[in-house]
């Protein structure tokens, strides 16, 4: 990393660039805060905050550069465990650069890692009313076929529910199909009531 430049008049780091035009000639000064104050008395230089912010700036740059080095080396410094999508072979680190995912399977491959980004963009991490906890207890056979209540209430579009119902029928999971049918009817019942209220 390049060392910060030194003031033209002393050894302190450069904080300001002052350009003065004297008798038609341009003078370019790279100076510290105090010497800047001398050159330009109207300049309001706050000794403390400026020096602290300079230190912060350089440490930020250092941190940023070290992050970049880690990224290039293939790791992000986070616990991605070198996550790679089994379908399209996208590396999680590559996604972080763009941020575009490779295919639908990436969402399963990087599920726990994507949660942070989703929370940032949407303030939510799932297409349901409450947060789904990452580590769910093993479901029993009975629980696996039951549709959780929060998924029944028309959260996904109606067409998705209808599709799930036909798949359940094809798979001879008639109990699940019946539950989906009830959920669809409930939503369609609500919608027709709403439509009567709106004239658009």
């Amino acid at each position, binding site marked *: 990393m390049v060392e910060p430049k030194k003031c033209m008049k002393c050894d302190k780091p450069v904080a300001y660039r002052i350009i003065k035009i004297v008798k038609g000639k341009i003078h370019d000064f790279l100076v510290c805060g105090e010497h800047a104050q001398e050159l330009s008395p109207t300049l309001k230089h706050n000794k403390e905050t400026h020096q602290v912010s300079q230190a912060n700036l350089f440490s930020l740059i250092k941190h940023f550069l070290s992050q970049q080095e880690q990224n290039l080396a293939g790791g992000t410094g986070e616990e991605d465990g070198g996550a790679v999508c089994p379908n399209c072979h996208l590396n999680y680190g590559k996604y972080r650069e763009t941020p575009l995912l490779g295919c639908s399977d990436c969402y399963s491959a990087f599920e726990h890692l994507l949660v942070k980004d989703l929370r940032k963009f949407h*303030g*939510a991490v799932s*297409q349901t009313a409450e947060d789904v906890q990452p580590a769910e207890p093993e479901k029993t056979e009975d629980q696996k076929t039951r549709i959780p209540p929060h998924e029944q209430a028309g959260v996904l579009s109606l067409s998705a529910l209808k599709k799930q119902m036909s798949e359940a029928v094809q798979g001879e999971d008639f109990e699940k199909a019946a539950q989906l049918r009830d959920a669809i009817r409930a939503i369609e019942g609500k919608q027709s009531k709403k439509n009567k209220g709106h004239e658009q």
Partner: protein
Amino acid sequence: MDSSLTDFVRESDLWLQSEGPKHHCIISSRARYARNLEHLPFAPRAQDEQLEQVVKIIDAVISANPYFAKLRRLDIRDINSLHRMYLKESHLISSELEQGGKHRVIYISPDYRICVMINEEDHLRMQALAPGLQLRKVLAIMDEVEMQLGRVIHFASHERFGYLTACPTNVGTGLRLSVMLHLPGLVLIRKIGEIVQGVAQYGLTVRGIHGEGSEHMGDVYQISNDVTLGKTQEEICSTLESVAEQIVERESAARNALFEQQPTIARDLIGRAFAILQHASIIDSAEAMAHLSKIRLGIDQGYFHPLTHTELSLLMMEVQPAHLMFRQGGQIPEEKRDNLRAQLLHQRLRSISYN
């Protein structure tokens, strides 16, 4: 040049030609769904053969369904850059598709209200447009189109994340709802900053007339939902509709205040704008939009009869670069365009008087 394609492009403003609800403040409404096929790489990371496969699959689905019989299919490669720019100005295609590219196809309805785009950032982007405030209408149209496609295509989805998209900012519903508002009153009384900051708390965002990165030309603001995950389509629609209606109320109040409390200033602003549009020989699009915005404001008060809000919305489109060049039949340098723009405005406003 394919004349039928030229005619087709020329007519692409058709969707804006009728008057919509609350048209004095709301220019148009739009609903857009993003969907993808399972397992095939998303468009930005797909190989040519895979993009071709996506096109083939969706072509087959659309051609087999009588619901889509009237849609016109166009390959983006067959549309030259001027025509693409025109379609973008008409809000029919996105800036992504305006760039061109291989294995990108659009399907457009005869009234230009529906456009289905293949291999934009997602395999499928479908949108519906309508004049005025018609969010429920455009959403209903999109739900129908999505359902018709979804009968056969199993859209990529995840039990937790909902519908999956190339960019995580679109997951969940994959729904972007937006309204285009004309807010000269709030701009003039300097309250627009409050609105822009205020909408953020509803998960909404404000952009200019041509989307991300465009300035607020002509006092036109596009408000859309930022959040697509964790809310239902109905919630997104209700929120945006309610916020849009509140903004319309505030804009109307601002306009009334302006004309009641400062009538001379208001007339002066509008009069000067009209005078410049009538007499300038050179005018760029930003300046033309700024003055047209004042004319559109004046229409509320009955000035410029028989000009309507709808005609002004269309005129605001006609002064855009591609629309101007299209009238002349080809690419034209900027200086010449600025002169043509001025001539067009003289022509349109010649028989209008300021009363």
